Each structure stands twice: as structure tokens, then as C-alpha cells.
């Protein structure tokens, strides 16, 4: 019944759709004579990216490399580590799971002004916001993942006379990996939002969030869109990277078969 998608189609259609939107946008801006202070044409955005590459690079280093990535690894490691500890104590697990689930659903980004107050204006406060935002999804997902191995599998390990550590390393951590990667995928998206919002509340004079607000005030919307483009590209690339690593590491999982 259904045609199988070829590799070509899987790339051509989305790219074509994207191009179509860009062309319509470009035509629309010229046709209706939209003020560049409201909506710049894609060509103007492209020109801004080309002419301000150095500035955009500096902002990217500040926001993504220093703010977001530091926050991601700190938050992830803390989340995973706590999950491993908590997993050993049923009592703690029962207590922490609902609390962590609750925190994971909160608008933690609201902590941004407080983190700026605590950790200063440079990337440290941004990394702190990101770390907290990342921490809870990682904790919750890892905990859920550690319970993913079923009783039968655990019993099997026991018949092999495997101890807690061996069961953890050979069965439960591998079984938890798909969940951990789901957490990571959620986290990378959150991380960029957190790092950018935190810059709204105070920053040095570089960074994507800083540039967006400053250039908006100067009516240089082409630069604002250039930053949006870079942030979209970064978000997609980070997500793609996590997905790629996941595929390599959890190649055995049913969702990657076929």
C-alpha cells in the first residue's frame, strides 16, 4: 500500500518546504513594503550573518559553549549520580520520585533572575539556570530507566550470581540508557532556552540573549533574526548529536531495529 520513502525524498521534501517558506517570506516583505525594523527579508538576514560572523561567533561561544554546555554536563551528571544513589534506597526513591516529577514540570526558567543575583553576570549564572533545568528531567528519566529491567531479567542475573554492581553495569544501566537519552534530548532544548533567558536579566556585553535584546532596541532586526537562525541551528545540531550518539550506544534497542 504505502510507498517506501527514499533517502532522497526524506531530504528533498523538508528542504523544499523550507525554501518555499523563505521565498514566500522574501516576496511578501518586498511586495508589502514591510519596514525592515519589523520584519527583515531573508536575504537581509543572510547578509547580516555574513557580515557579522565574528560577533555571532563570540556570542555563540559565550552562550552555547560556556553557558549551555557547562550547564548541561553539570545538570546531567548531577541528575544521573543522584538517581544512582537514590535507586539503592527504596525509601528515598519513593519520596524523591514525586517531588522530582513535580519540579520537572515547573517553569524553572523563572529562577533566572535569582541565579543572576547569586552567581553574577558572566556565564556561571547561565550555566546554573541550565543545570537546574536539566537536572530534574535527567533525574526522573534515569530513575524510570533504572526500573526498566523487568523482574525476569533481574532474576536471570541473580541466577548468574551477579551482585548489585554487576547487575547495575551489565543489565540495569544498559536498560536505562534509552530513558537517559530521552532526558538528554529534552535537556538540550531546555538548555538553550535557559541560557538565553538568563542573559535577559544581566550579562556581559556578548551572548545571544544579550545581542537579541540589544539589537531589538536598536531596530537592527536582521541581527536578531541572525541570532534566532544560529540558535535554531544549534538546537537542531545538539538534538541531532544526541540522537546520533543514542543510535550508536543503544543500537540493540527495539526502536532502532528495522
Amino acid at each position, binding site marked *: 500500500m504505502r510507498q517506501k520513502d527514499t533517502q532522497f525524498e526524506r531530504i528533498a521534501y523538508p528542504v523544499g518546504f523550507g525554501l518555499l517558506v523563505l521565498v514566500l517570506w522574501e516576496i511578501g516583505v518586498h511586495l*508589502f*513594503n*514591510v*519596514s*525592515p*525594523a*519589523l520584519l527583515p527579508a531573508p536575504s537581509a538576514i543572510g547578509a547580516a550573518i555574513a557580515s557579522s560572523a565574528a560577533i555571532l561567533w563570540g556570542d555563540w561561544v559565550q552562550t552555547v559553549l560556556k553557558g549551555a554546555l557547562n550547564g548541561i554536563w553539570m545538570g546531567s551528571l548531577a541528575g544521573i549520580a543522584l538517581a544512582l544513589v537514590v535507586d539503592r534506597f527504596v525509601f528515598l526513591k519513593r519520596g524523591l520520585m514525586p517531588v522530582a516529577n513535580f519540579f520537572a514540570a515547573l517553569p524553572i526558567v523563572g529562577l533566572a*533572575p535569582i541565579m*543572576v*543575583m547569586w552567581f*553574577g*553576570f558572566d556565564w556561571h549564572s547561565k550555566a546554573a539556570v541550565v543545570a537546574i533545568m536539566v537536572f530534574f528531567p535527567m533525574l526522573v528519566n534515569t530513575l524510570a530507566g533504572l526500573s526498566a529491567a523487568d523482574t525476569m531479567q533481574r532474576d536471570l542475573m541473580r541466577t548468574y550470581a551477579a551482585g548489585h554492581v554487576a547487575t547495575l553495569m551489565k543489565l540495569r544501566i544498559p536498560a536505562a540508557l534509552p530513558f537517559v537519552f530521552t532526558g538528554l534530548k529534552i535537556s538540550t532544548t531546555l538548555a538553550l532556552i535557559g541560557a538565553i533567558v538568563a*542573559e*535577559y*536579566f*544581566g*550579562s*556581559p*556585553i556578548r551572548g545571544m540573549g*544579550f545581542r537579541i*535584546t*540589544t539589537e*531589538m*532596541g*536598536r*531596530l*537592527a532586526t536582521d541581527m536578531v533574526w541572525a541570532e534566532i537562525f544560529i540558535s535554531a541551528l544549534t538546537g537542531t545540531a545538539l538534538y541531532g548529536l544526541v540522537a546520533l550518539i543514542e543510535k550508536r550506544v543503544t543500537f540493540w534497542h527495539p526502536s532502532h531495529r528495522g
Partner: protein
Amino acid sequence: MKNLMMSASVLAAMTTGAFAADDVTLQLKWVTQAQFAGYYVALEKGLYEEADLNVTIKPGGPDVAPVQVLLGGGADVMVDWMPSALAARENGAPVVNIAQPFKSSGMMLTCLKESGVTSPEDFAGSTLGVWFYGNEYPFLSWMGKLGIATDGSEGGVNVLKQGFNVDPLLQKQAACISTMTYNEYWQVIDAGISEDELVTFKYEDQGVATLEDGLYVLEDSLEDAEFKDKMARFVKASMDGWTWAAENPEEAAEIVLEYDETGAQTEKHQIRMMGEVAKLIEGSTGALEMADYDRTVESLLSGGSDPVITKTPEGAYTMEITDMAFN
């Protein structure tokens, strides 16, 4: 864009009957506070109504650029500072100054004495907090005049984009922060730091003052005689509002508080702010004074290697409205 604005005005014409008062929407530069008392007083005391105007006041905030609201057709007239208005003009937003209620600048740099900054010579190497979003221009042109680099290079100042409050000074994250005589300075005082622990540099005293709150409209709209007449009545009524507010600071503050939708402004702070703001409008007739304008333009042009505006603006102001209003 023109189409959009045209349809908006057609709509407006359809909804307001021939005999109804003329609608005017004013976009403020910042949140509702005594800095804009004159307009709220004119609204509350019926001065706009007497001038046959139906005025709506839109408060601003940290993420609202008044110019963009004006361009988007969300307002007819805005309160903005001249540096950001002129910079916007150079960036393709044709805004024109039609009146200048604020004569003096309230901007200053407030430093902790313990940071060791006592004169502008001490700035080099220290961390200074600056507002951005169009408010950085006076600072940049001052530093340009002093010959101090602001790009983080050796021997320059380390610039921070300060948030909306005075925390960087209280937490000692910056040696100096930007404050207004009528607002943030008092937040520092209220936080428990006494005046003799502070060193302040007023832009007025440093000879780098630029014009602050003025009224701006889009150039196109001035081609319409009816609009000009409407603006003349608006400016006249607003200036009457300002005169009343300066004479009755406590009642003016009360009126502002009533319009404050955040409910976060306090009476004490607003009355004090009104007192300080009154000093800034002192001596203003509402009309732009050429000497002040020239000084502002010159200061913005002389920003060293990176001036705020690159060429002398043309047609950035008109005396027509104030002439109509006051003669």
C-alpha cells in the same frame, strides 16, 4: 507596511463617529511611574478630554522598544530618549521630535565609595553596569569622549549589561551602575546604603547630558493636517498636566499609583520620584531648545571610533507642533 497602516486608520475612522473625540495612543518608554506623571495627570484631570482627545496610555517595559510599537501602528506618539530616537532614525525608522517636556537629564553613574572610584579617571579597569535596549547610547558617547574603550580591551572599562535593578551594586558585582536621579538611586538608598557611601557622576555635570523624555511621531503622519492639529492639542494638554504635576507632586504620585497595573510601586517612592522629575522639567516650555538639541547631536556624533550616529540628522525634529500648541 503602508497598507497595514492605511487599513488601520480606515478602521479607526469607521469605529469613531464624526463627532467623537480624536483617539490618541501614547506609548511610554518604561513602566507606569511618576516619570510619566504629566500624561497621567492630564488623563485623570480631564485635560485631554477638554482638548477633545480620547487618550490611551500604554506602559512600556524592558522588552518593549517604543519605536517598534510606533512603526507597528500600535501607537500614534511615543515617549523616548533622543539618543535612541536618533539612532533609530539612522536605522530607517523615521521618527520626529515634536515636543521636549524634559529639559535636563536625570542619568548618572552611581559608584560604591569602597570600590575606589572617585573620578572619571578611575573608570579604566573597573566594571560598570549599563542599561542596553537603546539606553546605552549616552554612556557610550560619554566613554567615547573620555577616550575609554568599552569593548573589553586593555585599559578600557568592563561593561556589564545590568538588569533592571540595583543588585549589581549591592552584590558588589560592579563598581558603578547606571541610575536615574528619580528612580534607581533611591532604590540603592532604600536598600540600606547611605548617601555618603556613594559617589555619583551626573551626566549633566560631566557635560555629556543628552535629551531624555521627548515626544516623537512618525514622519509620514505629519503630512496630515488633522494629525498635526491633534498632536498640538495633545502636547498642550500634556504640558498643562506636567505643570499641574510639578505643583502638586503628592497628588500626582497618587494618580500615577492608581494607574499602576503592577501594584508594585510604592507611594513613598513615587512622591520622591515626582519631586526629582519636577527638577528635570523645570525650565521647559515643551518646545525643543536648539542649544540642547545641538549638544545632544554633537555628543552622539563624537563617540570616538564608534559613534552612536554617523551623520548629522536632518528633519529629526519639528517646531511646528509646539508653535501651534503654544501660540
